[in-house]
């Protein structure tokens, strides 16, 4: 213990001062800097959301509140089709990438250390470091070759491309979860007569659950947001929501686009909140 128990009854002043020095909040300009950061981060999004409720067609001139643009956006077949494509692709990519990431995470943490383990870890994470445009062009060339050889077409290519780039995103939280899970629980299960498969289904998997959910949600959001790779791979009739928005703003920003974007933001916020709750449970 730092201070003896026999210390004088009330000498709060020096102690308080010491605590203030350690406290970052006491740094001059701390509050101002914090607010500046938050405003910079969220002001654009707030403006976007505000003008999605604008009565007028303008996105710079506020005239009154209305929900017309949301109605319009939801009635727009182009937007509805794009949203459906986005969800389809994201769901497929999430399922495939989460399964692959879970297996990869297990293989890199729950096996005997093997030569090249670090390399495997690097290889799984490397796509995060490669510029997305490079991945996009590489995928495009590969798919062009496959198309030529097989003659197959369709949305499957887009789904596979998404599944591939989502793997590292899904892998990270799953691996993080596995690393904090000590082997002791699995050993305890084995000690209590659980054969390896039961250990996995009754102990490893339930405990890994929060990590898998976090990985899946991250993969879903990343797939939903993707522009560059989708732009390269998507064929006719495979327009996702971000691509539709990109096309639409070439013809000028309308509050309709603001409304669609706001819906996207809402979905993302919802997922992030879910992720947060799941991670809170993980820490227990």
């Amino acid at each position, binding site marked *: 213990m730092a201070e003896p128990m026999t210390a004088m009854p009330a000498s709060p002043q020096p102690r308080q001062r010491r605590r203030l020095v350690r406290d970052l909040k006491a740094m001059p300009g701390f509050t101002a800097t914090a607010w500046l950061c938050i405003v910079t981060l969220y002001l654009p999004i707030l403006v976007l959301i505000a003008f999605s409720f604008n009565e007028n067609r303008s996105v710079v001139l506020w005239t009154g509140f209305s929900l017309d643009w949301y109605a319009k956006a939801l009635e727009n077949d182009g937007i509805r089709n794009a949203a459906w494509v986005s969800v389809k692709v994201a769901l497929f990519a999430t399922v495939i990438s989460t399964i692959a990431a879970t297996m990869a995470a297990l293989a890199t943490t729950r096996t005997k250390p093997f030569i090249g383990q670090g390399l495997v870890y690097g290889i799984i994470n490397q796509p995060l470091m490669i510029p997305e445009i490079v991945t996009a062009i590489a995928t495009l060339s590969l798919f062009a070759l496959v198309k030529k050889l097989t003659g197959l077409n369709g949305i499957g290519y887009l789904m596979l491309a998404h599944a591939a780039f989502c793997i590292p995103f899904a892998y990270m939280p799953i691996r993080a979860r596995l690393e904090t899970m000590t082997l002791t629980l699995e*050993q305890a299960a*084995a*000690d209590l*007569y659980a054969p390896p498969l039961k250990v996995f289904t009754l102990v490893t998997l339930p405990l890994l659950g929060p990590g898998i959910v976090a990985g899946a949600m991250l993969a879903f959001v990343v797939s939903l947001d993707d522009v560059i790779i989708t732009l390269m791979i998507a064929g006719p009739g495979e327009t996702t929501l971000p691509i539709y928005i990109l096309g639409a703003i070439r013809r000028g920003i309308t509050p309709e686009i603001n409304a669609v974007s706001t819906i996207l933001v809402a979905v993302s916020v919802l997922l992030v909140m879910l992720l947060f709750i799941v991670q809170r449970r993980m820490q*227990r």
Partner: protein
Amino acid sequence: MTGTEIARDRKAAVSARALSKTFGQGDYAITALDSVELDILENEFFTLLGPSGCGKTTLLRLIAGFELPTQGSISLQGQDITDKPPHRRPINTVFQNYALFPHMTVAENIGFGLRMLGKPTAEIKQTTERMLALVQLEAMAGRRTDQLSGGQQQRVALARALAPAPKVLLLDEPLAALDLKLRKNMQLELKSLQAETGITFVFVTHDQEEALTMSDRIAVMKSGKILQIGTPRDIYDRPTHRFVADFIGDINILEGTVEHTDGDLATVRLKDGSMVSAHLGPASARSGDVSVAIRPENVRLASAGETPTLTGVLENIVYFGAATNLHLRLGTGEEIVIRNPGAVDEGRYQPGATIGAILQPELIRVLE
């Protein structure tokens, strides 16, 4: 009765033969366990005692099956289990950090082993209830394990490991995380639980007092080797190694030379020239330079008119209620501690005074 005598008339529950475990390879290899020979008997409370890194936990993990030995074999009631995975060994473990399943209730935790053994639901329920009663946690059956206190978690871990009625129960420093008072209570509870169930307990600890209190027999380990196996009294009164003598309780160690021997008695000339008679251990040197050991409570102050075995200058007096320790510096530079029951006359015994000490001859040991 010595440890070996017990071994002769009871069957071994767990036997280790030439058991070695090496971690790592080549220059980085660490020998955690070095040719261990061990027989743990049926219905015995057996303790593996030693400092951290002595290999006691490795030995426990080898018995549980979490590690495979580099060499040697392990058998359970005469059957070789060396290559059996943990889930095929009728041995259960109480882990140091309890390792309770956080996603299951207390009752589900306790019933897990029976469920894996494919027991009928009714039996699982019945045994779980019996176990809950045994560890006095009936009211907690439906709780999540993270809602329990450390002591309660400890009991759940114990109940979970006992529920499948294992042949051997392994306990890996299960009391280390508890506070002193709770630990003392649990020591007694564990001991009576062992007597009640008749299951062989193998208990790992670095706490010598815990080992002495609870065990039928103790194996003292150091650097991957077992130095001495015996009853608490064997270990305390008749330590064979300097390390054992030093590790368990307080001890005075003096250097000397063996003058002559008679049976298991040796006459040793201490460095200051005084002669003492000391017991020889089975592997003690019978000639030349040796170390002799005697507990502080077996050294007493010489009263007036008595011829002291040793004399020295009093350096320190440490009073701790039930006894007083007097630290004497001998002419040879060696230190010896006298444990005097109760307080001493402070007027007579003051630092700097020359004091005579008497070593009780029958309690002096020659170390190996």
